[in-house]
């Protein structure tokens, strides 16, 4: 389905539950790294996927991307994209290293990033699940660290979501020392999932 058919009220509702889910996700991240994490959401919008790439950066920009599928009553795909620098910083934060230590991604660092995706998505989904009473679970994470265009198009193709608009929420995470983690969060739902979410919210 296309999000064009949603009313402004429904779009707002969808944005709102995503924001709540993200808030919950950031709280979990803070617990994981045992440090305070603040979050800003400068923008959120529905976009066709070509525009989604342009919003995040250039086609050849280095990014880290974690993606998980959501199964259950409102199935879809969740993905987080962090710019290259932020990906390395996240690894430092998670492993308790001084920021700037990690220079490239080894197996350990990749696992760390996947784990962050797991935690973020798990708490995102459980917040929405609690709010709506819908049954939702997540699968194991996938990870890529390469050109933005290559990473995103491959994922959209694998998900069979090349014709649709996507909910994009730009997120900025930062610690007390203002270390910035710049990321984008994307939610792609399967046909019918939005209707079920709306119905569960009484809209």
């Amino acid at each position, binding site marked *: 389905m296309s999000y064009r058919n949603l009313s402004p009220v429904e779009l707002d509702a969808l944005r709102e539950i995503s924001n709540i889910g993200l808030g919950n996700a950031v709280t979990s991240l803070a617990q994981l790294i045992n440090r305070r994490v603040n979050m800003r959401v400068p923008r959120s919008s529905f976009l066709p996927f*070509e525009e989604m790439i342009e919003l995040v950066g*250039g*086609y*050849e920009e*280095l990014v880290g*991307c974690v*993606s*998980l*599928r959501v199964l259950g009553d409102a199935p879809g795909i969740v993905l987080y994209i962090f710019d290259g620098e932020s990906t390395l910083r996240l690894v430092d934060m998670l492993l308790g290293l001084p920021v700037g230590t990690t220079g490239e991604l080894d197996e350990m660092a*990749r696992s760390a990033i*996947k784990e962050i995706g797991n935690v973020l998505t798990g708490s995102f989904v459980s917040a929405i699940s609690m709010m709506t009473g819908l049954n939702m679970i997540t*699968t*194991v*994470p*996938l*990870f*890529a660290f*390469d*050109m*933005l*265009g*290559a*990473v*995103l*198009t*491959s*994922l959209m*193709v*694998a*998900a069979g979501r*090349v*014709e649709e608009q996507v909910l994009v929420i730009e997120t900025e995470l930062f610690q007390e020392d203002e270390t910035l983690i710049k990321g984008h969060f994307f939610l792609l739902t399967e046909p019918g999932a939005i209707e079920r979410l709306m119905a569960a919210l009484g809209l």
Partner: protein
Amino acid sequence: MEPAKFDRPVEIQVGIADYKIGREPARLITLGLGSCVGVSLYDPALKLGGLLHLMLPDSTQFNNVTKPAKFADLGIPLLIDEMKKNGAHLSRLQAKLVGGAQMFSGLDSKMILNIGQRNVEKARAMLREAGIPILAEEVGGNRGRTMIFDTSNGQVSIRMLGSKLKVI
């Protein structure tokens, strides 16, 4: 240094699920190929080139095709037709293939369908059917690639993050 005798070659960007034609000295460029495949066709006699950025192997699995260039089975015949319309001879055409990588790692096999490999296989089959030889390939693996096709000599350069430019 040689004095610049010519203008800087024109660069023509080819978007996702799109194709473009260019003549010497144009360079056709498509950015960030992951599982997608870039197909270049070249008529050396005319120094005429075409580049297609396809995403999926087979259109018959979709009931609503809005952009035929998205698919190998429809996009490659379109590109061949466009080359012919511009004077190219089928018997002179030469192809090169770039892309078809597996970008993601993880254990979720439903998402690891290896579309990249299927794209490459379908592109090869379509070219074989049309009788167009594939002169070179830079396919598979797990890296994103940018493809730059120089219509003045038919060379294809491949840019990957953190690697030197590779020419095929």
